């Protein structure tokens, strides 16, 4: 039963992390290049654009849910399983989601990178 809780917790963390990352990435693309925007229009324009973006708030909410799910999962399951599994599955999930929802060109180079990083994180965070 504790395995079900642990893996359920991991999947919830991964799901909300990916949703949060995708929404924040989309929001920041809609806001535009911050460096250029800061030079051209100043900090308040940047803050205003971010705070008026619905995707930003949805993304932050999803990330907050992911954060608290992680806190709960860490107290339920073994840290050496929960932390690396959640982190590395989030990398793979993000690569898929970025391709589907953000239309990023996840070419062979980036797939290899996602797999290498996920494997490396699993080894290091364990």
């Amino acid at each position: 039963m504790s395995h079900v809780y642990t893996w359920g917790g991991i999947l919830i963390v991964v799901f909300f992390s990916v949703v949060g990352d995708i929404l924040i990435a989309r929001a920041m693309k809609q806001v535009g290049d911050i460096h250029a925007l800061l030079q051209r229009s100043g900090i308040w324009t940047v803050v205003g654009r971010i705070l008026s973006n619905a995707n930003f708030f949805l993304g932050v909410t999803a990330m907050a849910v992911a954060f608290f799910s992680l806190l709960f999962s860490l107290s339920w399951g073994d840290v050496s399983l929960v932390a690396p599994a959640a982190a590395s599955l989030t990398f793979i999930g993000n690569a898929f989601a970025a391709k589907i929802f953000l239309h990023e060109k996840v070419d062979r180079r980036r797939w290899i990178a996602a797999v290498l990083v996920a494997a490396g994180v699993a080894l290091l965070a364990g």
Partner: protein
Amino acid sequence: MTLRKYLVLAGVTVFAAAGDSLLSHGMKQTGSISIHHLQGVLLAILNPWVASGILLLLAFFASYMNALSWADLTYVLPATSLGYVLLALVARFLLHEQVSPLRWLGIALISGGVGFVAGGPALTSHAQDRDAKFPLLAKSARSGAPDSEVVSAGERASAASGRGER
């Protein structure tokens, strides 16, 4: 890519690693959290290590959002994973802890992965999306770059930001 952008990516790496370490240290002190005792969450947040960890993670979030405004998610994410490498190197060379061969393998894999991504363009998408949403921005970005589809979105984006910085 300008020096400023590399610094933002470095901020993503360092703040994520430092924030996670402080948070993990604090959570070990507060002990387990039960769904039946939600006040445990509040106690955890009041722990100074957890609170400092959250502050650093906010700094990470600011750098992360900055980076995502000019680069792909699949370009920025490997930078966050470099934090694990940083922590392992600090453990080995500053704290003189033992780093197992499996962990060295992990470092090699992450570094290899980051190398793969860093060799490519920072931005591959959104040029069309953004052009549709902010036609003026797209127009000003294009006027600085040769009018050719061969020029990648990343180069167009850096042309735009380069002009902004002058």
